[in-house]
């Protein structure tokens, strides 16, 4: 893990949750999470299915509010401000904290439009061509599509579509990129490309990834949060959070050990 040399004064923690609880109507899905996400690092959230990983991830950019009846208690501090403060507009949160989904979902428009649309609705006034090229380059897709920017985004392969979604998220200049199992629908080669891409992206952005593929979490992340259903309440919580190396060689919690060694149901 290379040391990041900061030249500007920036706090080390980009996102910090304090006693975060997430509800769907009366059902508590995530309980009492206190964890942090460090700048220019990749943080992975792992755990068995149904333990609330995706719910927790979505709460970082208030996407869980799209589900009717979903609300959160507690705080999510981003750049010193609580995202769940009533004065904060979720729309603004969502372009500073972008999201990439499990199944690639590019807009049914051209490749160019996919990226340009997001920038345009946020009032981008610079050279659009330049922005599109820059985003595609950052997503390691430029060389493959530079001659066919007007083709539909849906005509690309699965891995390319996912990279297009990443480029689309980059177009609005986020600080954090949330990825919800980004490679689970891809073949191994496309998966590796995405993982390499993440290593490049973390130089300029902060990444949080949810994955059920432990080897991927081990390969790719710097920090790992282990989630599991807590005892009595059937709600998910973070039971261990540490550097990835430690989680996968000598975890502190027995349940984490059982999960990473595959002896968990």
């Amino acid at each position, binding site marked *: 893990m290379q040391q990041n040399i900061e030249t500007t004064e920036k706090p080390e923690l980009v996102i910090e949750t304090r006693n975060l609880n997430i509800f769907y109507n009366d059902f508590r899905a995530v309980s009492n999470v206190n964890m942090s996400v460090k700048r220019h690092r990749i943080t992975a959230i792992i755990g068995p299915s149904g333990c609330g990983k995706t719910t927790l991830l979505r709460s970082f*950019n208030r*996407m869980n509010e*799209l589900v*009717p009846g979903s609300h959160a208690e507690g705080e999510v501090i981003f750049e010193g401000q609580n995202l769940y403060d009533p004065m904060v507009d979720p*729309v*603004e*949160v*969502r*372009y*500073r904290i*972008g*999201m*990439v*989904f499990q*199944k690639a*979902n*590019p*807009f*049914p*428009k*051209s490749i160019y*439009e996919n990226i340009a*649309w*997001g920038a345009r*609705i*946020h009032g981008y006034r610079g050279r659009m061509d330049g922005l599109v090229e820059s985003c595609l380059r950052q997503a390691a897709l430029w060389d493959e599509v530079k001659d066919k920017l007007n083709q*539909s*985004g849906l005509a690309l392969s699965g891995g390319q579509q996912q990279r297009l*979604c990443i480029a*689309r*998220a980059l*177009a*609005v200049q986020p600080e954090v990129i949330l990825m919800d199992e980004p490679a689970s629908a891809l073949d191994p080669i496309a998966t590796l490309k995405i993982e390499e891409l993440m290593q490049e992206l973390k130089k300029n952005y902060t990444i949080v990834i949810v994955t059920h593929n432990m080897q991927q979490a081990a390969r790719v992340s710097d920090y790992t949060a282990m989630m599991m259903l807590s005892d009595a309440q059937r709600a998910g919580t973070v039971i261990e959070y540490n550097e990835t190396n430690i989680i996968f060689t000598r975890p502190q919690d027995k349940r984490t050990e059982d999960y990473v060694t595959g002896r968990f149901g």
Partner: protein
Amino acid sequence: MKLSTPGSTQESELKAGLSDYNLDILSRKRAGLIWRLIFQASTIVGIIALMILILNIINSAYGYSALKAKVDPDTLAVEGVPLEEQNHGQLVAVLQSHISGPAFKKLDNEKPFSERSEADVRALVIARVVRLQVEKTWNLWDSLTKSGEINTEVARDYPDAELRFTSWLNSDFINRPQTSEPVTAGIRTAIYGSLWTILFTVLVAFPIGVGAAIYLEEYATDTWINRLIQTNINNLAGVPSIVYGILGLAIFVRALEPLTSGQIFGIVDPTTANGRTVLSAGLTLGILVLPLIIINAQEAIRAVPVSLRRASYGIGATKWQTTWSHVLPNSIPGILTGTILAISRAIGETAPLVVVGASTAISFDPASPFSKFTTLPIQIYQWTSRPQDEFRALAAAAILVLLMLLLTLNAAAILLRNRYSGRF
């Protein structure tokens, strides 16, 4: 040929033996074959029924007819100019001299002769003066198979009549206005009436319907009021159309008379200053097809996958931006389908328009939204209720025109839909 079954070696007790299964593949296939035949038979029955209908109509629309003129057209030649070559003024003079004064005045009131085209006036002359009468008509089948018999019959019973093969559906038919004489009748009036009415129907129902669908799908929350509204809309789609006619009569024709008769705008139909206008008809039909459009548009909007909306929200778009830029463009094929259905339904509606007051005997084209009108189905209905054979032939011809109009509109809408679904 049966595949050889594997010999059982060391298999665990959990695996069932092949003997536990009744592998009667043949009887399973037979059952499938029987059902397939049943479905094919149903399709064939449907096709046959359709073909019988169409052939019957075509049968009525073409055939021999014995025509006799009450007044020989040659006697109407003015200064040696035959009827076909007379100009507007001459034709008007001929007309004036041969029909009664009040009748002439009535025609003038309906539409001043100065505004009628030469062809119109000539048609009037032929209808009212020459009075070409149809003695008897035969349908296509008889005309083709029994032409000899027909000839002898005409020679015997109608010596003065001329036997002609008439295709009741011809370009004159489409271009001529309606007249009381079957020979000269045309459906131009009805076509224009239908088109104008449909135009207003779509103008009213499309925006309101799509707007309501957007609201119900995207913005309405799941409260009991909204569920009530939704149920009511679904039910309204099944209400008999005559009810809409009564509704239209009460509201558009009577209550909103100043609006629909054009009084407010100062454009008033000189013959009737009341609300039985194209606008009323369009509005009535608009309300009729509104539930259809709403339901279809809702289905189309619902069919847009959640993942697309999430993608849009994920980069910080507002609800309206998402709806306008992504949900709507992707649901246009479905919405257009709903509109096609609506138009198809509206074109064929007769009962509500009768109630709203479609005229059955007008002979001029509608000039504005505030004029009297008639539509194709109403014209057909009127003609089929006349006893004479020739009107049946006219009705058949009109039905063919209606079908072609429907097909054209459908094709246009489908083309439009395909164009849109091929784009991003």
